[in-house]
């Protein structure tokens, strides 16, 4: 099923890594299941301790039977996509390097990270790796130049994030607006609808970048717009910690057609909480 992992394969991977908590959900082996990762907050703080019975999921308005896994113990694939166009220099570059280093410090032993940097070119400075020393060196070496291929870089980050088993977060930082990508925003937004990588964006400036806003929304991520890069490291680690505290909800669709766009709605029963999840998925191919 386009855009969704076949759950049985994923479950085997998770068991092998020991990444599932004591509660073992049951899954249907006959119907490919849908996974949705969900951030639940109350007054801006993540809510923990919810069980599968607490959630309601609607697929095209049809209520679904929910299975649940929290995944703060599931290894993370963190893809950093950093804007190094000519405007990212001086203190801004220093803050970006410091933020990247703090992020790497916050990773757990089984997590992996990759570094993509982009100006008008999109470069894979380090593929997904658990050896963070090379990544730290790569971050220290970046030098600003050229224009901004934000859209191409976001596509690349999603491809790298999708390339390996595990939960993938693409963290995209940009202080500019796309000026040189080949791909257009609508094309990459369509990709974000199809795949499971969560994109969180950090932008700098008066107005949030429209593309970053839309791609984070469609992938179930968040966009943080900052006035300056002074506390960028705190923003990066907050986003990473939030991602770890998401719930992974799984269900096997019933009562809906398999193909086309499926509108998703996730609620927590009986409580007025803020839910952040992807707005839907593209079924069939």
């Amino acid at each position: 099923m386009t855009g969704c992992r076949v759950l049985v394969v994923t479950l085997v991977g998770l068991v092998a890594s020991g990444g599932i908590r004591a509660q073992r959900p049951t899954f249907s082996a006959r119907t490919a299941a849908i996974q949705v990762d969900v951030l639940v907050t109350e007054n801006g703080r993540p809510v923990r301790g919810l069980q599968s019975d607490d959630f309601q999921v609607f697929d095209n308005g049809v209520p679904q039977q929910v299975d649940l896994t929290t995944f703060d113990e599931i290894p993370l694939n963190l893809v950093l996509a950093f804007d190094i166009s000519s405007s990212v220099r001086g203190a801004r570059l220093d803050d970006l390097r410091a933020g990247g280093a703090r992020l790497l410090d916050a990773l757990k032993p089984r997590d992996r990270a990759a570094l993509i940097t982009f100006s008008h070119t999109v470069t894979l400075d380090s593929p997904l790796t658990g050896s963070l020393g090379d990544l730290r060196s790569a971050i220290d070496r970046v030098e600003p130049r050229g224009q901004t291929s934000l859209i191409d870089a976001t596509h690349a980050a999603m491809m790298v994030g999708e390339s390996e088993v595990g939960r993938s977060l693409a963290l995209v930082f940009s202080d500019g607006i796309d000026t040189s990508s080949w791909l257009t925003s609508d094309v990459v937004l369509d990709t974000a609808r199809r795949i499971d990588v969560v994109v969180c964006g950090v932008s700098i400036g008066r107005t949030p970048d429209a593309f970053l806003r839309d791609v984070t929304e469609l992938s179930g991520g968040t966009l943080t717009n900052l006035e300056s890069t002074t506390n960028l490291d705190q923003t990066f680690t907050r986003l990473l910690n939030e991602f770890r505290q998401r719930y992974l909800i799984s269900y096997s669709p019933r009562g809906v057609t398999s193909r086309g766009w499926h509108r998703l709605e996730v609620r927590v029963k009986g409580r007025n909480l803020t839910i952040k999840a992807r707005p839907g998925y593209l079924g069939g191919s």
Partner: protein
Amino acid sequence: MRPARWSISTSHQAAEEPSWVANVRIWRAAVEDHKPGKIDDAVIGINAWSYRDLAATVADLVGLRDLLVKLRTGPGPSFRLPKYANHTFSASEVEAILGVTPEEGAPREVNRLLERGAILHTDIALLAAIETVPYGAPEAAMRGRDGRAGGVVATVHWEIARRLLDAVTPAPSADPFVRSWYRATTALLQHDYDLAYARPQLEHGLAILPNDAALLFGSGCLHEAHASPLVQSMVRSAGTTVSLNVGSPTSHLRLAERYFREALAVDPAMTQARLRLGRVLGLLGRHDEAIAELQRAVQASGDRQMLYYGEMFLGAEKRALGLDEDARAHYERAAGICPSAPSPQIALSDLGQRAGNRPAALGAIQRAFASAADRQSPGDPWWVYSIAPFANAEDLLDACRRHVQGGTKR
């Protein structure tokens, strides 16, 4: 430190030469002393003049030229300029001010001065530092960086240069130098992405030379650039603090279409114009028309870079129509033309993703990464698409400079 000999005259003594006459002399001497293409004393000195003084000096120069024609052809040895009622000039006095010999025709000789003057002011505009917005400057430009608005700057010298060439006789449209100058300067301004000054230059050039294919093509490129994300994002980031002469992307794309069609009407063999017309039609959502123009451009062109653009744009149009296999073929041809360019691989990665073929999508993006990492790579022509037609701009301007250097200095 401003060179003293090029400083504006402030003499108002009736017994001495009037300051306005002195300024014409000073300006003429600077023009003739200037070495085209160099930052010399003439550039530094004249750059310090105010817009008002420059405009007045140009007007006085042209007024004296017209006076000399009247003195040589009209009745009586002297003539009073109504503007300067206290002064009379003889023909020899005006000849001395303008540096014209009695043997030569005044208009032709003054044309030479006007052309050299245009080159002086061109060099000031290009080479001298712009720090503030001169008082009374008719045009100002907003500098942008990486899609973000920056400060406001201005130079008056493009306009002064245009005024000089407007005075060329019998008509600027009949002067080959004027045509060459507009083609060279608009190309250079667009090559340097100085769109704020390219626009009035193109508009004025087309007012003089409405059927010049190069200027029509340049105008199409200008509006294509105004529709681009780089310019549009700069406009958005400027907010409401300044009013910029930039409209919506669609409005500029429609103007680009119009100018490219007009260029092709004058020169149907102008493949670059046809290629860009196809691109613009695609951006306007008229994909079938776009494909027709792009295919004609590709078939007519033997230029590697143009073929690359043609295949990439055809790939984009076929993808827009859902013809993914055709799109893939075009992108693969583009990759074959420029093997080190990342954009075809990024495009192929997108197609792979659309087809649900993860290995293909990832493989293509990894090839794009490899291209980007190759320090020997000549790069991706897509990155320079907006300035590609103007690669020879410096050569065109150097030809104009050599032309004025060929005249006799007085």
